[in-house]
């Protein structure tokens, strides 16, 4: 078929292979677009690959990120292009020509087998950039052990042959002739429909800045260096030590806001994440070295994300991380010990205190990566004064160039989940732009069908078990004695073959794994590594690649359940690992191949909530041709945003609401249900059924996905005379009054604002994220109308993160006075003979103050919507203790629920700004489209089945199932709907007649496993 003239190109270029780029690429690839994922370096991975663990869950960064890298590397719709840079972009959205330059790698990637001999023999040692120059690497190198693609490269600035035409040893010894000294720069063009920029960031602090003696004192390191120092794959193998003498540090200090919030360094903005990563690093330090003392010097703790304040609490009270609110001027060094000396003024003793630390970590601010400014100039993209490509309020991932989108830190400093959200939003924009060009594979395409090995226990063939043991860097190998373990396994008669890998989950290992399985004719596989929860799908894919049924594999978790918990006893840990593996082998022998069923998908979606997030999600899906049922419980669209006036940056959420409302109402793909709610819900991903009711009618609908955008609600204050004194108002009420009566502030002399009302307290632990900005915005508005008003803001930590910090500065310059208080000395508001009085204590001047304001404004926080509980029960979703919905994974799956096919956006997730809610809604919609754009869906084969001969229809299973999967069928016996069954195993355990079997967890398999565990172990 000849493509229509105007049909856009269904290919997309994503620049930057960090978490943002990877996520955007996957979100596009899964929705039928072809992605060129380009990275300047020799591997994708970005900064997240350098991190040790992530807050607030302390998940191992590599462990959660690696599966994504592997998925991208193996995705048929993604082409990873390393060493590539976008030079120029011609054309119009939908029809761009990208000019790409590929720098020579001097290693032929098709030939390289990553044997590492070149690096081993290479005589030239250079500081290792991946390890933040704390360690050394060779001039022939791989960027890091889990690099994707796992191919070596030569460093043209260091290689002796490339610089001086000497040596050439690598070329001589390379067994496959992959070294090519004559590689040249390649220039080529690609036709793409759109571009997503996710080029990431680097630390702003360099040795030239001289801040805190970085580059002068050896025991002063950056936060990223410290991340490498903590990491098992880092320069010190995860054993924390000082760079100067290798001793393990006892006292460690963090200094926050280095090259952040610093006008004198032309970095007046906040880098948003340093407060949290310092807390995380301190917590990890305390668990690495329980004897250590960790002190964080800071100005404001900016823990404005979901669960962050709780994490800080835990850091403080559970891990004894000490927080000192004081900005250090400079560091001094003790010449004998190379310890660092911190001098602070202590108000309690009215004197200067000297404290010595073995190690000081500088939490450096971020800046866009080197070369980004040039790229932006070439692409003609407008940047803010600090080099970031900030998105618009209503289009948070758009750049000044149509068809070019941005996500991640490049847009503004942000953490991983916000980056993932923006990546999804950028993918949604592209997907909308290019939706005509969406290409989907034929639904029953079956990869590797021709080399399927028909070997099952039934066929009577010999069972050949292969065991693969993972080092997980030093996570496992640092504790468990791998060689001993391996030889013990090899001696086991049930095992045909056993081998170990550094990182079994890395993309390159998958190929080797598949080859090994084929070569040794293995038909049962045991992976002794980490948790099946995170890694089972990955290895199942590899089995498929090897032509085996994916269910012929079992995992032994010798990391989480062994090496991590028995870190001190190698001998016992090794013995336990062997036991776990033996049990897995016993189970593996009894595994059976399972096949998935497929079913037709309903290509409509349900969106719950007609606020900013709900409308945005609905429009995003409708634009791409999917029908949406949009349900709003009130008679009005717009939700929380309707009540707002304008944002800190001067945008109007109500205006955005009106624009979205017009588009929602006129979109033929959206059916709008006002004054309505979902009263019943059943089914499973791709095939849900529900009933929408209002006062008069009821609609039975079917839908393939659900987006929960049920919003939030304002906290109703009862404190500070709110409700009993009309002079006490909320920020929203103040803003509304200002809008209605702009002259009103001319009558005012004195306004006091109180922050954190109803937030960050014993009953409601979290921060509402938006209140500091709301206060700053209203304070500026008051001062703009009447510069003579005394505006006083009483706060605990001022959380104007990112570029919002610039407005905090503006407010100060306009004369707004900020006083910090502590909860134990909370301000008191009272009426004195008709005069409103506020008494408070300032922590900076150490004075008690009284002020008699005309107006007291309370910064009341955001609370979860009241209906959340009902909705959670109906959709079977879990919530946080505060009542917000709980996402599948805080870092990497922020808009998904554990229940497949249901997605989350906006205030229902956590307090957030309007533009953040918009981005989140787009991201959630894009995840939903991954389902909606399919024709058919596969069920999980691990569902429970009822033996009709044994069932007595006692209803035990019907009652116990949390997912509503079993029902009593026409024959009067229980039947379980495979697509609904989550394989949780509750009904098989509950069934008194033992009529139910859970596929892949049969009695036979489990008993074999238990017996193996009870067997005596021989070494």
């Amino acid at each position: 078929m000849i493509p229509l003239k105007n049909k856009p190109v269904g290919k997309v270029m994503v620049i930057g292979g960090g978490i943002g780029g990877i996520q955007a690429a996957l979100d596009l690839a899964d929705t039928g677009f072809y992605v060129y994922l380009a990275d300047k370096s020799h591997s994708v991975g970005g900064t997240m690959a350098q991190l040790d663990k992530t807050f607030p869950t302390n998940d191992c960064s590599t462990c959660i990120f690696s599966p994504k890298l592997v998925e991208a590397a193996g995705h048929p719709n993604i082409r990873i292009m390393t060493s590539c840079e976008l030079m120029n972009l011609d054309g119009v959205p939908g029809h761009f020509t990208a000019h790409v330059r590929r720098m020579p790698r001097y290693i032929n990637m098709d030939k390289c087998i990553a044997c590492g001999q070149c690096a081993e023999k290479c005589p030239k040692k250079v500081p290792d950039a991946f390890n933040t120059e704390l360690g050394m690497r060779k001039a022939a190198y791989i960027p890091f052990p889990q690099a994707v693609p796992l191919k070596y490269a030569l460093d043209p600035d260091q290689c002796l042959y490339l610089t001086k035409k000497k040596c050439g040893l690598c070329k001589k010894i390379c067994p496959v002739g992959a070294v090519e000294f004559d590689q040249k720069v390649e220039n080529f063009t690609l036709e793409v429909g759109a571009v997503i920029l996710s080029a990431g960031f680097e630390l702003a602090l360099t040795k030239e800045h001289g801040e805190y003696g970085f580059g002068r004192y050896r025991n002063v390191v950056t936060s990223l260096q410290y991340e490498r120092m903590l990491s098992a794959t880092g320069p010190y193998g995860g054993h924390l030590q000082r760079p100067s003498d290798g001793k393990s540090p006892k006292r460690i200090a963090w200094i926050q806001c280095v090259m952040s919030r610093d006008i004198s360094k032309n970095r007046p903005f906040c880098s948003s994440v340093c407060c949290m990563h310092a807390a995380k690093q301190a917590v990890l330090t305390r668990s690495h070295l329980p004897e250590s003392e960790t002190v964080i010097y800071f100005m404001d703790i900016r823990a404005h994300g979901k669960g962050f304040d709780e994490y800080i609490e835990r850091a403080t009270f559970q891990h004894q991380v000490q927080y000192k609110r004081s900005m250090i001027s400079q560091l001094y060094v003790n010449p004998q010990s190379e310890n660092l000396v911190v001098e602070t003024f202590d108000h309690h003793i009215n004197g200067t205190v000297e404290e010595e630390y073995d190690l000081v970590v500088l939490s450096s601010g971020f800046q866009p990566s080197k070369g980004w400014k040039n790229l932006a100039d070439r692409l003609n993209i407008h940047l803010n004064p600090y080099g970031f490509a900030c998105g618009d309020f209503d289009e948070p991932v758009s750049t000044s160039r149509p068809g070019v989108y941005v996500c991640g830190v490049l847009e503004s400093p942000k953490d991983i989940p916000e980056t993932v959200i923006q990546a999804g939003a950028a993918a949604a924009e592209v997907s909308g732009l290019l939706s005509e060009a969406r290409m989907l594979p034929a639904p029953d395409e079956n990869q590797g069908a021709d080399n399927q090995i028909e070997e099952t226990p039934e066929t009577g063939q010999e069972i050949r078990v292969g065991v693969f043991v993972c080092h997980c860097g030093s996570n496992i190998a640092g504790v468990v004695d791998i060689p001993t373990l391996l030889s013990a396994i090899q001696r086991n008669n049930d095992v045909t073959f056993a081998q170990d890998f550094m990182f079994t989950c890395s993309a390159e290992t998958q190929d080797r794994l598949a080859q090994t399985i084929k070569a040794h004719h293995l038909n049962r596989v045991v992976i002794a590594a980490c948790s099946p929860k995170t890694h089972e799908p990955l290895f199942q894919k590899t089995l498929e690649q090897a032509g085996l049924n994916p269910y012929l594999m079992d995992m032994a978790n010798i990391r989480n359940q062994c090496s991590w918990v028995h870190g001190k006893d190698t001998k016992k840990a090794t013995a336990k690992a062997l036991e776990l593996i033996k049990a897995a082998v016993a189970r593996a022998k009894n595994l059976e191949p399972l096949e998935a069923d497929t079913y037709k998908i309903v290509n409509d979606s349900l969106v719950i909530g007609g606020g900013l997030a709900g409308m945005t999600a609905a429009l995003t899906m409708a634009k791409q041709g999917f029908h949406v049922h949009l349900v709003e419980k009130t008679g009005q669209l717009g939700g929380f945003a309707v009540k707002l006036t304008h944002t800190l940056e001067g945008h109007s959420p109500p205006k955005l609401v009106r624009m979205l409302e017009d588009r929602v109402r006129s979109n033929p793909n959206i059916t709008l249900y006002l004054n309505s709610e979902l009263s019943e819900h059943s089914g499973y991903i791709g095939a849900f059924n529900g009933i929408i009711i209002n006062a008069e009618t009821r609609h039975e609908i079917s839908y393939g996905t659900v987006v929960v955008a049920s919003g939030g609600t304002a906290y109703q204050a009862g404190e500070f005379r709110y409700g009993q004194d009309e002079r006490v108002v909320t920020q929203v009420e103040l803003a509304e009054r200002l809008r209605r009566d702009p002259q009103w502030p001319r009558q005012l002399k004195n306004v006091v604002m109180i922050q954190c009302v109803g937030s960050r307290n014993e009953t409601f632990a979290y921060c509402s994220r938006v209140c500091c900005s709301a206060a700053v915005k209203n304070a500026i508005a008051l001062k703009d109308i009447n510069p003579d008003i005394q505006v006083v803001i009483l706060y605990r930590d001022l959380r104007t993160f990112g570029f919002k910090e610039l407005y905090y500065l503006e407010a100060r310059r306009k004369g707004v006075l900020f006083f910090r208080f502590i909860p134990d000395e909370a301000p008191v508001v009272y009426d004195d003979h008709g005069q409103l009085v506020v008494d408070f204590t300032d922590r900076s001047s150490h004075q008690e103050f009284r002020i008699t304001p005309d107006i007291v404004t309370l910064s009341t926080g955001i609370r979860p919507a009241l209906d959340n509980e009902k909705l959670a029960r109906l959709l079977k979703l879990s919530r946080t203790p505060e009542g917000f919905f709980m996402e599948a994974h805080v870092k990497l799956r922020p808009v998904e629920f554990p229940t497949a096919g249901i997605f989350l956006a906006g205030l229902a997730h956590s307090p957030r700004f309007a533009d953040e809610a918009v981005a989140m809604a787009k991201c959630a919609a894009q995840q939903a489209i991954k389902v909606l754009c399919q024709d058919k869906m596969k069920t999980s084969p691990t569902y429970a089945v009822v033996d009709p001969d044994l069932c007595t229809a006692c209803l035990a299973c019907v009652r116990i199932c949390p997912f509503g999967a079993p029902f009593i069928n026409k024959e009067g016996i229980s039947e379980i709907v495979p697509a609904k069954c989550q394989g949780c195993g509750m009904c098989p355990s509950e069934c008194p007649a033992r009529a139910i079997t859970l596929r892949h967890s049969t009695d036979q398999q489990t008993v074999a496993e238990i017996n193996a565990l009870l067997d005596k172990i021989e070494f």
Partner: protein
Amino acid sequence: MNLAFYPGCSLEGMANDYERSITAVFDKLDVKLVEIDDWTCCGATAAHSLSETMAVLLPAKNLAAAEKMGLDIVSPCANCFNRLTYSRKMILKNIYDVPWKVTGKTKIYDMTRFLAQPHMIDQIKQKVLMPLEGLRLVSYYGCQMVRPPKITGFTDYENPQTLDKIAVALGAISLDWSYKATCCGASIGIGRRDIQFNLSTRLIKKAHQAGAEAIIVSCPLCQSNLDMVQNEKGMPKIPVFYFTEMMRLAFEGEKCSIQNFRMHLTDPGRLLREKGLVK
């Protein structure tokens, strides 16, 4: 090459030895110092404490005189350097009624920075007759020469290098320490000896801890404060030299008499003899 030399008041009195060593050193270099005729006091701390305007205008006479000479100014005293530089910056804002004509065409060097230029360091190395081998020095810059960086132009204000470079050129061992630019107390001792004592003794102790056998300075007030405070019991005895005294010693070698150091309160004789630098 000629430079307009602005010695400042202290070099006529307390820091007379500084001036003598400067004269001796520049005798040997290709640079001639031409003293600004009839120079007047820069105003020091007192002038700006009383009045900003006074502080801006007082150095103007000297700036104008140097401009008339058509020479760049070099100042051996940190405070003079700071006041001259500040004054010029403020005068050029054209908001003051200045009695003398200042156009800002001449450069102002503090003496260390002039001498630490690469070509001067080369010259210094050539002139060294007796390298100060084995002498362990810390360089002390004080405040006024390096701060505020926007006035002084020292971007490495926490870790300045000019004195260190000169010390190395003389063959001495220049030790890094963190207190290069930590205040010695300046003239606070006039009214609050306790403060000056605490600040200065702390520096002596830190220098001792860093392994220094001597301190080199370029500021008369710093020299005086650090030198004087060592009278106290229990203090380590660390001679405090003007850096030009060390240059002179290296340039003149055996010809340099111990008498040149007679104005020091903390006697440097023992150290210099121990190191074989004087007889």
